């Protein structure tokens, strides 16, 4: 392949831009519906009420903002962890069963995905509330009730359920490409099942874990409805504060600054995580 590279005909080289032309509608859409509004947010965060950094100074000088920012990341991390733990065996099961059962398993993931987020969150209210299904079962079994609704635990449970498909699907797509003969080979060379899993299967599946974790974590950071309905004051996330600033106080600048802080912090975290992920990728790709 590499030897033939210099001999690519000129005509073919000229055609190389074509894939980009195909991507043009998506690019235009992204620029129009994400790029432009994002730019507006950045500009307004710096220009309202006057040009300057006042909105950012305000953000970092109010303790509640920082506490909520930190809480937003902590909750998102918990949600990611819960999703990994629940999704990993599930995705593995999807690779191990026949096509019929796999379809069924896939439907189980996708059907809740097609139901509106508000409806799903409200069903969680019914399940989690003090007089709800879970607590009635616990009480009828002789256990005391647990406070689930309006707690951070309740928020994490609700969010993890909403975000689970985003973890299962990338995991499954990576896992189905893993050659199970490699695990068999490890076993035949004398590795115990746990050893074969840890040294062969797990590293090969890690790209899926990372991909899913990044998607879930980033989506979780921006959650609004679920923490609002399932949480109490101690599980308020940043989006709720943004909403108060913009919709109630008409402080677009401050709301914008909060959004930018969240975005930048996310980028920084991803940049920090990227080298780890890349080296793992290489390891995993090694034969």
């Amino acid at each position, binding site marked *: 392949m590499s030897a033939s590279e210099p001999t690519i005909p000129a005509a073919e080289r000229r055609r190389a831009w074509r894939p980009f032309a195909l991507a043009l509608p998506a690019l235009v859409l992204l620029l129009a519906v994400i790029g432009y509004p994002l730019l507006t947010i950045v500009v307004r965060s710096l220009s309202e009420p006057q040009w300057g950094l006042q909105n950012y100074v305000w953000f970092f000088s109010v303790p509640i903002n920082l506490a909520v920012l930190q809480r937003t990341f902590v909750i998102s991390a918990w949600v990611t962890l819960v999703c990994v733990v629940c999704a990993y065996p599930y995705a593995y099961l999807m690779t191990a069963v026949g096509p019929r059962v796999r379809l069924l398993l896939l439907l189980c993931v996708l059907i809740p995905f097609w139901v509106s987020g508000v409806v799903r969150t409200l069903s969680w209210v019914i399940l989690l509330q003090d007089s709800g299904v879970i607590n009635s079962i616990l009480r009828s079994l002789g256990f005391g009730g647990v406070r689930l609704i309006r707690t951070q635990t309740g928020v994490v449970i609700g969010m993890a359920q909403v975000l689970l498909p985003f973890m299962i699907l990338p995991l499954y797509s990576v896992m189905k490409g893993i050659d199970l003969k490699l695990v068999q080979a490890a076993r035949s060379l004398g590795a115990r099942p746990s050893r074969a899993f840890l040294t062969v299967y797990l590293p090969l599946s890690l790209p899926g874990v990372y991909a899913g974790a990044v998607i879930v974590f980033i989506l979780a950071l921006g959650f609004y409805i679920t923490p609002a*309905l399932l949480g109490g004051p101690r599980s308020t996330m940043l989006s709720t504060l943004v909403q*108060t600033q913009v*919709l109630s106080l008409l402080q677009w600048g401050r709301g914008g600054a909060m959004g930018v802080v969240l975005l930048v912090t996310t980028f920084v975290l991803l940049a920090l995580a990227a080298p780890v992920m890349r080296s793992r990728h290489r390891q995993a790709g090694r034969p």
Partner: protein
Amino acid sequence: MRLRFGHAACVAVLLAATAALAQSKPVAGEVAEGSLKGKTLTLVSYGGIYQDGQAAALKEFVDKSGVKLLNDGPTEIAKLQAQVESGNVTWDVVDTDDLPPYVYCGKLFQKLDLTKLDVSKIPEGQVGECSVPAMNYGVVLMYNTEKYKDNPPKSWADFFDTQKFPGVRGIDGSGSPTGGLLEQAFKVAGGDPKAMTVADIDKAIDVVRKLGPDTIFWKTGAESQQLAESGEADMLMMWTGRAMTAVKNGAKYTPAWQDWLVVMDQMTIPVGVKDTDASYALLNAYLGKHAQEILAEQTSYTPINSDAQPKVDASVSAFLTNSPERQKQGYKQNFKFWVPNFAVAQEKWSALMSGN
């Protein structure tokens, strides 16, 4: 014959005079036949049965004037601000919360020309510089009758007293602070709401904070209703409409009416609407006796035309707030204080709502 002619002429002159008078002096609920033919008005409100009721109340106006009425919503002041700033205002009449028309009077909402509206039947003190009331309701203290039995809470002071009245409290956490509740809390802290200062907002919020970690801040009216129906909160701060529905659905709760907090929605005309007079015509029709009766019958909110006699059943009328007795028990918030301090109060309230 001549006599008859004279009679008819007399009537004609009288009619003409009335018509001229009507033109110069509007009567609530009336609109000239076909006067808005070909025009379109957009009413913005909060959706649900409330906005359906408003549309029903305005049906007569629509049929008679020939206007095409569009409904939009929910009301968001930020959206309205964006419209006013861009000079493209598509909302002609906007139903808002209590305070915004006072906070943004002249900036987002037009100062009303009261020669174009008949405000004579609106309860005293409810016409603002930029708003007329859309309806009245109350924020009321509801308590669980099975929990408190013979020793029920009687006032907001009892609501804030967890020693004498143990139990879970539910408070409106839907967004903005309720001025009246903070004033009642400030009273508990030993202050005088009439002489409240900005620093006192903290004292009032502290009283709410002291209710403890079990306190539930409900996010939506539906949630407050659900808290009553499931019995999860022992004392609830509730909107009268939701309180009524909860009781109708079997919640074992009853109101303590003393110092119920008077609240209302406001009707406004945004700055920069395309046809101001058409918006005025809608408002004036909305204030009419018949329109208000329909609104009250459909939504169970209290009408703001004092002549209105809505036909409602006992469960609804128990929660209407316009009877002389209720009017005496009602507590009106200190508007003069909250309007300039709205932003400060909101920030402090949001901090409480975010677990601080």
